[in-house]
């Protein structure tokens, strides 16, 4: 009775979930784009004004990282909303849609909301010194961080039984990943011990990769390869966590 499952079905399912929850929503509520696009520029604006433009490149890198963390983790809020308020996740659980496909679909949906801000911030990165040669690096950095943050958001929200808990935890993680580490400021501003600690945080590397692509000096001993390795390790870790430890069927 059920239509034959093709190998492309999961990708199609993810796209349809993104289309339903992202594109259709935006088509009928275009103002949402404006609201979600503005917030990543708030710290950029403050830092630009305070530093008389001196820290603008750090601020651009930081804002892009913060936006990626925000849009990735926002998936967790969406999931929590669909699970506890709409109960629509129950319909997905009791269907052939896998949890990773569901996650991918909602992550793509969040990306739609963030596209204007991410495009503008990526354009600023290029404007402030990144060569065209560095665009693949820029895109890779964006994709790696967005993917790992989405997987993390999915994992965290699957353990939350209440919408309010999800919002609180995700706000907390946002600060831990996008405000405290050297995302908006040079890593050299931290005491040496904290510099080592901050290398364990994926957003530090994402920011350093962006700073590097804009021609800003990076710490001796840090390399793009190291940055990639850490980012990929986090991505694999969070996706594995989402696949094996996220709660899809309730216990």
């Amino acid at each position, binding site marked *: *009775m059920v239509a034959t*499952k*093709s190998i492309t079905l999961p990708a*199609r399912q993810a796209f349809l979930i993104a289309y339903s929850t992202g594109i259709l*929503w935006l088509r009928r509520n275009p103002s949402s784009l404006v609201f979600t696009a503005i917030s990543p520029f708030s710290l950029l604006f403050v830092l630009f004004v305070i530093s008389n433009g001196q820290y603008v490149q750090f601020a651009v890198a930081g804002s892009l990282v913060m936006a990626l963390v925000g849009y990735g983790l926002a998936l967790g809020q969406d999931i929590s909303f669909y699970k506890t308020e709409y109960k629509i996740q129950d*319909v997905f659980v*009791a*269907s052939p849609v896998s949890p990773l496909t569901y996650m991918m679909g909602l992550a793509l949906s969040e990306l739609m909301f963030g596209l204007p801000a991410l495009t503008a911030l990526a354009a600023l990165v290029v404007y402030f010194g990144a060569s065209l040669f560095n665009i693949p690096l820029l895109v890779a950095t964006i994709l790696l961080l967005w993917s790992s943050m989405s997987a993390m958001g999915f994992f965290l929200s699957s353990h939350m039984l209440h919408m309010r808990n999800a919002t609180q935890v995700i706000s907390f993680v946002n600060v831990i990943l996008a405000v405290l580490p050297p995302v908006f400021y040079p890593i050299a501003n931290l005491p040496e011990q904290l510099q080592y600690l901050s290398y364990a945080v994926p957003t530090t590397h994402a920011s350093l990769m962006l700073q590097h692509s804009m021609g800003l000096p990076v710490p001796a001993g840090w390399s793009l390869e190291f940055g990639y390795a850490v980012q990929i390790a986090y991505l694999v870790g969070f996706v594995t966590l989402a696949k094996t430890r996220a709660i899809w069927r309730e216990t």
Partner: protein
Amino acid sequence: MLAIDADSLTKVYKGSSRAALNNVSIKVDSAKIFTLLGRNGAGKTTFVRMAATQLLPTSGSISVLGYDAVRQAKQVRQLISVVPQEGRPLRALTPWDHVYNWLQIRGEDKKQAREKTEAVLQKLELSEVRDRPAMNLSGGMKQKILVAMALAVDAQLLFLDEPTIGLDPVSRRQVWSAVKDWKAKGGSILLTTHYMDEAEMLSDYIAIIDRGSVVAEGTVRDLRKVIPQNTRIDVARDGLDIETLQSFGSVVDTGAGTLRVFTFESSIRELSELAIRRNLPFTVSPVTLDDVFVYLVGNIESNGGWSQRSQ
């Protein structure tokens, strides 16, 4: 093959000392409508969610359409469709978006999805509002969107957890009709409801759950036999003493200025004449499922009402 075969199914939620479902064994035949009746918190939704692979049991076993619902959830999920309790459609999406996209997500091609969406929206009288975002629809129409999504899918077993909650009487009948059509095509249905008329209208078999245990099961006809009498007479209580009425059978105070007498057909005439002589309004009807339900789970005797049960 059984649609659902649950054996000694138990669920104790984390942090709770009481079992939400306690040692429940239920068999649901294929191509039948099986209804779970129970008060709020009786364990109906817990059972549905375990059968629909949304919740893991604490102990016991449950197979759905021949597959183990715990270990073979992937296979089960290919064959089922659900309407969750208190579900809501997405605000910005229209009824068409919900059903058409959902069918494609379930693997239908665009042509099939279009045809099935048109058919189910027409069946549930959602065609006129098919392009209106759910946020602009009434609560009943929103509920019908979820029902349409579930019914449109080409599944073998349908889980309907209070599917007609909030629907007006006409819409409820539309849903009933669609559910009967589903069954006529050979589909199986597990239904939960608070509406006794719905259960009577649709069910082939009913299990009444109370505090996590099945307290009675059978066809509507079987369950009616739980109450020894077959006739119900409601009579205004003004000036009537309960002792007089008890000579005809069991008496319940409905709490609305009316006494309900459960008796046999042979007493209808005498009781009617008694009411007419005293100029009291009265109604006569067969014993309903509602009476059986209240009798089994309602704790009527604690209100001093159900004399038969305390005898």
